[in-house]
């Protein structure tokens, strides 16, 4: 079992080692994609084994239950298109060999750290893995070494590291409460032990700890009030890295919030965590709506849309009924796939238009149908249109909200969501269908030259969209896994 449990971490870690040893060349360029496929395969195998009973390995350091297995599948499903697009991105940007090697090492290390985060059996190891993702992605955000990229990387490291330091203070206090509830030292940060002894945890200390943990991991998940780094970092990172950061890294941090909520609910009742999550969720939705209304940069537009979706996840988690939790989990996957496709397409759009200003892009559908189609379909998915996954999951969250007597919160969320939809749809529509630019300053595109995508890049867009549509139409075997994951999260 240890082998199967370590495989999702080992595959990308080995690929990172290979990039460090051999550099980025013809023979190793596709190694990242191979590692991502291996991760996805291991995740599915783990899901089959761990669906009804958790499995532990590596001396109790790693544990996979249905929720971890599901999160691993999300990581794999987003990592496959993102790594498929990597070689094309580096080639198109004419990246120097040294930078390409570093890109390979850091992206694979980043994926490995996310896999470790969701497989960790203890809150402490989870924290270390999430902080490691910040360090590994810092230079990816600053990859282009321009003034803006450096500024974004600085803000990213400072805000995320201090935000997550708050979470560590929460862990320390929870550890203190656990030791006083006679949880043995070896398992004092272990989920299952903490949940089992939750009733004995001191309420006063646990309340402070939970607030710090939700605020701290929320910072890394892009939830208000510590969201200011997100648009800068996701806007400046190379497109495949933005896809990974927006598509899964936010959800991995949100996974930590979900785990904390289980302990908080058992120790303090549903009230405190619900209040915190509702506040953070609605505030995030409001921030996203306000800043999307006047947005002029399409990569930042996608980043604010991520804040919106994270806010929606927080509202869903706060509702906390079985339907809401199932919808939240499905939304994590649907948003991950759609957002990664949107960011990958935005990378191509950036190369066509020479920037990330919305004004510079007009009538894209005529010039680059595949890129425009991918971007448009991904944005439609993010807006919650059928047949894509987010349609079903958003519907689920709102239905659960009205059924659980939190109609006021669901109502506010719905209004904010409509504002976001309007802003996003108007801008995307102009980019894809608007009249070709003739104003001075707008990009002069050689209309005769059709934009051809490398096969792997096209496959990445299509695969992501197909996945997102498939889960919107039917869940198949995923349904059982989601059911068990919801039970792990204490939703009955």
């Amino acid at each position, binding site marked *: 079992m240890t082998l199967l449990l370590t495989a999702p971490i080992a595959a990308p870690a080995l690929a990172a080692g290979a990039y460090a040893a051999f550099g980025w060349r013809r023979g190793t360029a596709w190694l990242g994609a191979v590692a991502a496929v291996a991760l996805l395969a291991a995740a599915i195998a783990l899901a089959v084994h761990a669906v009804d009973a958790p499995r532990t390995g590596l001396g109790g*350091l790693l544990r996979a239950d249905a929720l971890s297995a599901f999160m691993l599948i999300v990581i794999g499903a987003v990592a496959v298109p993102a790594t498929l697009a990597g070689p094309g991105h580096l080639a198109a940007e004419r990246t120097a060999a040294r930078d390409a090697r570093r890109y390979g090492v850091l992206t694979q290390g980043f994926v490995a750290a996310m896999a470790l985060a969701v497989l960790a059996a*203890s809150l*402490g*190891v989870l*924290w*270390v893995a999430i*902080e*490691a993702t*910040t*360090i590994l992605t*810092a*230079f990816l955000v*600053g990859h282009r*070494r*321009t*003034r*803006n990229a*450096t*500024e*974004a*990387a*600085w*803000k990213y*490291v*400072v805000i995320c*590291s*201090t935000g997550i*330091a708050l979470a*560590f*203070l929460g*862990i*320390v*206090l929870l*550890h*203190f*409460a656990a*030791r*006083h509830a006679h949880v043995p*030292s*070896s398992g*004092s*940060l272990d989920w299952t032990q903490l949940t089992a002894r939750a009733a004995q945890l*001191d309420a*006063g*200390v646990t*309340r*402070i700890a939970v607030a710090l943990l939700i605020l701290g991991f929320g910072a890394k998940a892009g939830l208000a009030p510590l969201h200011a780094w997100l*648009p*800068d970092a996701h*806007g*400046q990172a190379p497109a495949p890295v933005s896809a990974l950061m927006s598509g899964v890294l936010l959800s991995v941090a949100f996974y930590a919030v979900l785990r904390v909520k289980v302990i908080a609910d058992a120790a303090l009742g549903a009230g405190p965590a619900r209040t915190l999550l509702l506040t953070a969720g609605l505030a995030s939705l409001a921030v996203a709506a306000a*800043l999307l209304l*006047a*947005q002029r940069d399409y990569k*930042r537009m996608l980043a604010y849309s991520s804040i919106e979706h994270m806010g929606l996840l927080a509202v869903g988690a706060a509702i906390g009924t079985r339907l809401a939790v199932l919808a939240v989990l499905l939304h994590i996957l649907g948003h991950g796939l759609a957002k990664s496709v949107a960011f990958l397409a935005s990378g191509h759009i950036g190369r066509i238009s020479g920037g990330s200003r919305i004004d510079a892009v007009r009538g894209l559908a005529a010039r680059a149908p595949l890129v425009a189609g991918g971007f448009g379909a991904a944005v439609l998915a993010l807006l919650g249109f059928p047949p894509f996954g987010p349609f079903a999951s958003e519907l689920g969250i709102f239905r659960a909200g009205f059924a659980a007597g939190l109609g006021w919160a669901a109502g506010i969320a719905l209004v904010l969501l409509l504002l976001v939809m309007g802003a996003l749809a108007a801008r995307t529509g102009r980019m894809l269908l608007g009249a070709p630019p003739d104003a001075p300053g707008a990009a002069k595109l050689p209309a005769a030259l059709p934009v051809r995508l490398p096969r792997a890049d096209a496959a990445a867009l299509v695969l992501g969209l197909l996945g997102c549509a498939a889960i919107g139409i039917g869940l198949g075997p995923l349904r059982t896994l989601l059911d068990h994951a919801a039970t792990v999260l204490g939703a009955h």
Partner: protein
Amino acid sequence: MNHVLYVRLLDLACGAFLLAGVLVLWRRDLAAIVRLFAAQGVALGCLVAVLGVDAGDPEVVGLAVGIGLLRAVALPWLLRRAMTAGGAGRETDPRVNVAASLMVAALLALLAYAVTRPVVALDPAPAVRAVPVALTVVLIGFFVLVTRRRALSQVVGFLLVDNGITAVAFLTTSGVPLIVELGVSLDVLLAVLVLQVLTARMRAAFGDTDLDDLRELRD
């Protein structure tokens, strides 16, 4: 160790730990700030060593040595390297002046005592009674982070937060499990390394590392 002596040494170490944090607010000279940070690292190492000797736990004493080396030697060394590459070493015009900063520090200490009341109530041992002091350092660190303009001062603010949290961890339960402690130390070291490289890049791109120049990305 005799109990009275233990409590006195503990109080002494905590006092030095807090004093170094408050003095960071007082000084503007970046070299002096880094020296104060190193002194705080020594105080933290001593604090952990006192706790370890009292508990008769060789693992904690070993950790004390490691923490002392990391926070009093390695991290200040990295900060000094970032500084010598920099040149002008003064915190020019922080957003809040020194007198007001010291007043705020006093208010933050009150806040820390108010917030940690449930913690002290759960276990009124001498070490746990010192938790508000450690939390005050965390809050001072946040204050430095938001009011200072130089990149290096901000890094010191981040490290003050981290020192304070480490002190809370050892004062409450003699530290979190070893593997987590090691991971945390490694993460902090790497975060500072990353920030050091970014400082150098910012200097290349902006000429200096005054963070007020970071105004390109906004909505």
